[in-house]
């Protein structure tokens, strides 16, 4: 089984978010980048499936050279090889086109990625890839198992419940917890990752369809109003009469 796992390179979950002085771009200064946490569920599940059934796991990132440390980390966790499409990920449509182009050349049985990236929170790429390739996309899945060699069984979260879906290979699915327990690379993994193949390819020509023109930060809260725990019930009165939310 050939599995493609798409990862994005995002600011660490604890990062303070700042923008350049003109508010036109994200300020990378002092920011630590990690593999998008949602993508890690896909990566680990892919590795688990490979360990159980055989096959290969290829990691794909659309990004510039500075994403390579995290691609190597994915290899250290257990992916077999990696492809980096050498381009700044302008928007979801641009990224989906790049993934679809790589997928068309390689006939993957499944294409997995996180349900969204924690930086742009778009939740678009997986469904766009499915649409571009004309194959089903199951989003957001939290369980993925093989029924037999050609059929997968997934569970997907819907508002207020879940759906059980069986699809034939190939398909696209997105991941979220508890699909798998993300792994930390061990020493052996880190050593072997250095020599695993990481191929760089140039992007296919495609236009982005959106343009980020300005960034801003939410207004700061006015500060907390503390209520005496002895008179805790007063909170309920304040929520009704002052905040007007009850």
């Amino acid at each position, binding site marked *: 089984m050939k599995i493609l796992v798409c990862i994005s390179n995002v*600011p660490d*979950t604890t990062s303070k*978010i700042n923008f350049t002085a003109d508010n036109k771009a994200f300020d990378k200064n002092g920011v630590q980048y990690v593999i998008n*946490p949602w993508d890690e569920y896909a990566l680990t599940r892919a590795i688990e499936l490979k360990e159980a059934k055989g096959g290969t796991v290829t990691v794909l990132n659309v990004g510039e050279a500075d994403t390579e440390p995290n691609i190597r980390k994915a290899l250290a966790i257990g992916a077999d090889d990696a492809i980096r499409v050498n381009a700044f990920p302008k928007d*979801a*449509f641009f990224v989906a086109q790049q993934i679809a182009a790589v997928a068309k050349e390689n006939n993957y049985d499944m294409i997995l990625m996180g349900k969204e990236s*924690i*930086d742009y*929170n*778009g*939740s*678009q790429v997986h*469904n*766009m890839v499915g*649409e571009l390739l004309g194959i*089903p*996309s199951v*989003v*957001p899945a939290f369980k993925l198992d093989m029924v037999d060699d050609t059929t997968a069984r997934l569970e*997907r979260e*819907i*508002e*207020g*419940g*879940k*759906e*059980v*879906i069986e*699809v*034939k290979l190939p398909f696209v699915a997105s991941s*979220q*917890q*508890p699909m798998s327990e993300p792994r930390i690379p061990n020493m052996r993994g880190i050593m072997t990752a250095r020599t695993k193949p990481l191929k760089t390819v140039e992007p296919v020509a495609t236009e982005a*369809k*959106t*343009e*980020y*023109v300005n*960034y*801003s*930060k*939410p207004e700061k*809260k*006015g500060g*907390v109003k*503390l*209520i*005496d*725990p002895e008179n*805790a*019930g007063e*909170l*309920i*009165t*304040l*929520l*009704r009469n002052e*905040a007007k*939310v*009850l």
Partner: protein
Amino acid sequence: MSVLVFVEGLNGEIKKSSLEAASYGSQVAQTLGTSATAVAIGDINEASLARLGEQGISKVLYDADDRLKQFVADAYVKVIAKAARQEDAKVLVFSYTNIGAAVGSKLAVRLNGSLATNVTALPKTDGEFTVTRSVFSGKAFADVALTSDVKIIGVKKNTIDVTSNAGTTANIEKFSTELADADFAAAPKETVMQDTGGGVLLPEAEIVVSGGRGLKGPENWHLVEDLAKELGAATACSKPVSDMDWRPHHEHVGQTGITIGPNLYIAIGISGAIQHLAGVNSSKVIVVINKDPEAPFFKAADYGIVGDAFEVVPKLIEAAKALDK
């Protein structure tokens, strides 16, 4: 040209999030000097459809195909794309739910449109067509220009007020689409709805009561549940709580759980790590109850009580019971 809104139903009614999308769509239509049409699919009764007039929708295209009672992305997209072409829709609006996100992304490819999801405000239409969206897990906003001819907008839940022009009704037109078996290749075999015990569903809730490790164990969850019941709220929890299986995963709010933005979020015994805040920071009013005055969550709170949850929460339940409902 026109504005087309995709509305979702649940048990015959239109979801509140879709009423927000309809309100958004008709305001955009007004700005552009055109009308707003809705496309409705699945299990929605006619009275609910007609009431969309109150949100400014003039016409509803309703596809009552039984196979569409459950969500199947490819089939839904075919229906909406057909409606978009028929109505010459240049702006498509939906609520940014799991269903909406799937439909919107596929439509963007099929209609060659620009897509923005997680949108929090009406567009600016002087010059470029620009929308504001929430990014970096609620830590920032971005203004995004939608540069294609067709603009597709996924509205973040609970950020747009539902407009209500009482008594106005929308015309319902039957609408049917030729669907092939292939459109149902990824149809669910089984749908299991959560048993909320008559309570409120978390993603749709306007008030949420949430518990963390400070509650010491699942046996103490009656505190969260009783307060939620009195306030008509849904219950939620922090990541450690779902990791320890005190509560199910679908209740976990935070960076890697679900993101919510209710009118009121009450956090009990949650310290407020940055990853937790990422899931709740768009809540309109935040209340934090924690015995540690240094808990970082107090910095993000509107109201706070520094105290022991086991003493404070019963007092809140009593006060909530006394409220005139």
